């Protein structure tokens, strides 16, 4: 699972839809892998406004990355190629291969195996 996806995914339990603590899901025992992908500045510029920066800081912290700047790069900062490259590296090239994603609200565990998250729910939680 790419870090960018972790910034969009929420708990799929019905009761958690309305709870603010259900996002972001928290990583535990994460094993990372770098996978090179083509650098696309256009894509980063397109998707950055939708990134929840606070959640990204939390995720990056849990994955053991050096802390991110306090606020989201905006305006002129987006013309700086190095900033975009760093974001590309964090958001798209960093993959979580193994581990668990835990909801902050209901503590439901989603297991990650070989980069695939298991989001199947038992029917009583749907």
């Amino acid at each position, binding site marked *: 699972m790419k870090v960018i*996806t972790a910034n969009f995914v929420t708990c799929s339990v019905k009761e958690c839809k309305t709870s603010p603590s259900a996002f972001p899901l928290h990583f535990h025992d994460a094993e990372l892998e770098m996978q090179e992908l083509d650098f696309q500045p256009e894509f980063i510029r*397109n998707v950055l406004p939708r990134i929840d920066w606070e959640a990204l800081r939390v995720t990056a912290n849990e994955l053991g990355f050096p802390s991110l700047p306090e606020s989201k790069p905006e305006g002129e900062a987006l013309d700086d190629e190095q900033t975009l490259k760093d974001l590309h590296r964090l958001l798209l090239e960093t993959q979580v291969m193994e581990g668990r994603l835990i909801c902050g609200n209901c503590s439901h565990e989603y297991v990650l195996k070989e980069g695939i998250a298991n*989001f*199947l729910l038992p029917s009583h939680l749907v």
Partner: protein
Amino acid sequence: MSRPEDILPPDLFYNDNESRKYTTSSRIRNIQADMTNRALELLKLTSPSLILDVGCGSGLSGEILSQESPEDGGPHVWVGMDISPSMLDVALQREVEGDLFLADIGQGVPFRPGSFDAAISISAIQWLCNAETSDVSPEGRLKRFFEGLYASLRRGGRAVCQFYPKNDIQRSMISGAAIKAGFGAGILEDDPGTKNSKLYLVLTVGGGGLQGDITGVVNGMEDVNVLDARRKAQELKGARGRKGDKAWIMKKKEQMERKGKVVKQNSKYTGRKRRVAF
């Protein structure tokens, strides 16, 4: 043709063997590629976007999203959901670029609001019309899915779902569920009436300059006829008029004449209103 939907639930039907067969068959690959390209054409994306692939299977359609050339607005980054572990296993072996989720789309779409630029689904949502256990219903699953999809798309986003309905009931059940969830919906049919006919449910989320009508999506496309059932119904009502008025009588007389019946000649008195009699 046999329908896999009638045989087993999707997670069991697509076992290791079926998944491998599905992915290696060149016939299926070609059909899937054609449909994915058609769906991309309908999405009209102009810049690299984040796309949700619903029922991604082994990533046949996702591969095309990753390979889309920069001139056509690609390459796109995609996230795939599928319920069959075997299919996802094949996707892993093929080293697709998208992120994969083992998830049931009938349980909702677990992404926060406004996540995706677009969504695409190739031959998947007809599976929602089957309920495998007694505690879920097809209507409920369709509702969960479309509501989740609607929320996870950004405003002005689009979704194109190619599907194989078993009959007209399923077809209207699926499009009805999409409309109830808030989508602007319409169905595009390729090669209608033939064995190869393909249905594309085109969904729009608010705005996008389409005014709640998807006919704008196909505007400017070649070989597309717009059949708008709503407009037709209104026009017909206007043309036929009320029963018993002059236009109605004239039409009836014409019909009878065509049948070879003896019909009185038309005159200035035909269909004229009588004076109110006390």
